[in-house]
């Protein structure tokens, strides 16, 4: 699949077929994630794959942004201590979030290529997810990516046009 096609085809998928996602595919998604750009190449991430029904059921009520029950979740965490040690305050406050976002987009695009659908989720309670996943305090869950086989291809939500969002040389 061409990159352009994946960029266009990728949608946030919120309803999935009742079909498990093979662990090797989840590994492949994380492999794509670790090749994302990383501020100062800190690579502060840790990915937790969750496909056990019991564990997903514990996460769900603390993640209001998670629609339905996807076959798998990839929880993207970043190590804030490592970010601060290697990247200072910028590392802790900014790079920790941005690296998670770049990793998530690599997961989205790779999933698209593999015929999987994803949805990036931020509406969840970080403290609660930390408890459920037994994360050490410095490892903060930044995004949850739901993963599964899409039930249907949703309509693309509207985009602001290039003309509206782009300027040359200076604003306006």
């Amino acid at each position, binding site marked *: 699949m061409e990159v352009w096609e994946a960029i266009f085809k990728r949608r946030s998928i*919120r309803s999935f077929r009742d079909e498990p996602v093979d662990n090797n595919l989840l590994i492949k998604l994380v492999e794509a994630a670790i090749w994302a750009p990383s501020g100062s190449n800190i690579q502060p991430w840790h990915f937790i794959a969750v496909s056990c029904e019991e564990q997903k*059921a514990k996460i*769900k*009520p*603390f*993640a*209001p*942004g998670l*629609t339905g029950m996807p076959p798998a979740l990839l929880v993207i965490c970043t190590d804030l201590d490592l970010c601060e040690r290697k990247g200072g305050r910028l590392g802790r406050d900014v790079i920790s979030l941005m690296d998670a976002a770049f990793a998530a987009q690599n997961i989205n695009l790779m999933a698209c290529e593999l015929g999987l659908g994803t949805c990036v989720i931020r*509406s*969840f*309670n970080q403290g*609660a997810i930390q408890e459920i996943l037994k994360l050490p305090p410095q490892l903060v869950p930044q995004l949850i990516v739901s993963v599964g086989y899409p039930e249907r291809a949703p309509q693309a*939500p*509207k985009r602001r046009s290039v003309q509206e969002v782009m300027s040359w040389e200076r604003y306006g």
Partner: protein
Amino acid sequence: MNKQRLIDVFCFIITSARGCLEEPPVYGPLRLLEAYVMLVDALGEEDIPSIFLEEKKHIEEYMMLCMYDEKAFQEEVDKTINRIAREIAG
């Protein structure tokens, strides 16, 4: 009644209360509708008047509209309220 589902609704409502302090305002109505859907599921269909079951189905279909089309979302919620009020008015 499914006790575990009811407990999930409790957690969902409290988590949403916290989330709504920081999230886009339109997520408030969405979370309330989601909690309604979860409550109906938790309580079980037997004890619930049919209008609420029918509206649950509608709500499940349209609730994500709030992300893309707030006006259409508002219209759908209005329709739901009107149908329920009409039923209650008799």
